[in-house]
């Protein structure tokens, strides 16, 4: 994987390389380098299969990490491209013209993380949630507990326990 990284580096300014396994590496990229690198990997290096496109919310750094994972069947290797985009007004270029299936991933990211992909087909249509008007729920600052307390009523007569506290008492009854 290191060879491929060096080869790519001749053409494109690349960030950090993380070799996770012999056949899996992650490369950090700048936003504007994504399309040329994706096309290079697909057309010249045989990374023809888009495995996943997903996001990670780094709330403390105020950015989203987008991960594009590509797979090459001929040499059984995978490359993950990591991009950091600002969390406020998060927008990214759509790649549905390179992989049509990316439109579904982008629609989900729009709904769950609020990342916009202008030009992506049906990106603003409801995907999984219907009539959602809260902040996008997969963002780290969305509080699931608060949401469920506000939305759903407690069933009467039901005892709730904090799992961590319950296990602590069960495993260490003397408080050791």
């Amino acid at each position, binding site marked *: 994987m290191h060879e491929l990284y060096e080869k790519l580096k001749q053409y494109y300014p690349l960030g950090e390389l993380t070799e996770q396994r012999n056949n899996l590496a992650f490369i950090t990229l700048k936003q504007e380098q994504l399309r040329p690198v994706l096309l290079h990997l697909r057309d010249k290096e045989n990374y023809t*299969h*888009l495995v*996943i496109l997903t996001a990670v919310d780094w709330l403390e750094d105020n950015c989203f990490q987008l991960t594009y994972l590509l797979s090459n069947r001929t040499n059984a290797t995978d490359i993950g491209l990591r991009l950091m985009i600002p969390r406020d007004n998060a927008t990214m270029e759509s790649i549905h013209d390179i*992989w*049509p299936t990316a439109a*579904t991933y982008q629609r989900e990211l729009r709904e769950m993380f609020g990342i916009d992909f202008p030009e992506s087909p049906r990106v603003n249509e409801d995907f*999984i949630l219907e009539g959602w008007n809260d902040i996008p729920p*997969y963002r780290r600052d969305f509080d699931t507990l608060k949401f469920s307390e506000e939305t759903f009523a407690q069933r009467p007569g039901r005892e709730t326990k904090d799992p961590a506290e319950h296990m602590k008492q069960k495993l260490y009854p003397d408080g050791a």
Partner: protein
Amino acid sequence: MAYQPDRSQYPQKKADGSLDIDLTSGKYLKLWQGPQHPGITGNMSVELTVCGDEVVEGITHVGYLHRGFEKLMERRTFIQCFPIVCRICVPEPDFNEYCYAAAVEELAGIEAPEYANWIRTLILEMGRINSYLMYCGGQAGSFGMGVISQWTTYVRDLMLDRFEELTGARIYHMFILPGGVRDRLPEGFAQRMEETLCEIESTMSDVYDTMYCNAVFKKRSVGVGVIDVDLMDSYGVTGPNARAGGVAKDVRKDQPYLVYPELEFEPILGQDSDIYTRADVRRQDLLQSVDLVRQILAKMPKEGALMAKIPSVMHWKIPRGETYVRGECSRGEYGYYLVTDGSGYPRRVNVRGPSYTHAMALLERMIVNLNIADVAGLMVSLHTYPPEIER
């Protein structure tokens, strides 16, 4: 040869590329396929626009099963996620357990013992058999043959008995946990498994005669729902859907995991890429899994460690990192993308189910110009399980 008009340009498109469909013209009708089905496509629906009995547009709608698994896992410790993951796929839950466990082990630097890996492989192959049996019933049901699902449900139940005696549970086994597996094989398990496998083979022989050699089934499935080989990569097609078109995508061979390098098998390939070929590839795959279970029981060591040493699960912190682990489930490539940040909770878990691509972009493309009566057959032939889409 009878005149066949080219339907690919119909209806006409507007300037923005969308279809020019005027519902008030009386030419078109909206029809909902689902979310309840007699087949086994699960709770998803396709919004069809039909002209006569021909589909001109199909839009997949999901969201009937969303429980927010990925988000739930971010607020749970690594071991608390383990009973959640299996619920992402009902008919074949074990791949979630394996992929999650393998991803956690990789980031935590733990290696599962060899004996546990043999049991993991056994469980995965048993799950594959179950999933294919369920599929066979659904595929036959979608073409009006209800009896096949009763036969396959019977033998699937026998396999569930084997699961029950091995794991204590029939559907959600919660057996493959980070570090190894929960228990060893019970006394006399191999013998009882052999009896179950013989029963499955006998039933599949009957299914072959009744379903695969049936003139009506052939007439309705041969040449229908063809996936073009050129679409395989652009639409992320994997598993039997790809193998039926002659593309030998099989993670067990491409990136061998667990003990698959020690087992003898070759990916089952088809040529025609239609509904019938996909059904036949799955039937042969099922029989291959029966053979693999026999190989595993014959080759696996009789004793060994079940669990690697893992830290106290209540205080288990995993250093910052990210990885992707995949396996070949009955529908194609199943994978887990796990990101950790050094805390006691996963930062992000993303599940890659094969249905995500098969049931959305691919189905919406393939459904156009199909007869309404064939829609159910096509949906089942892609072998989709909607919880994988909405996680």
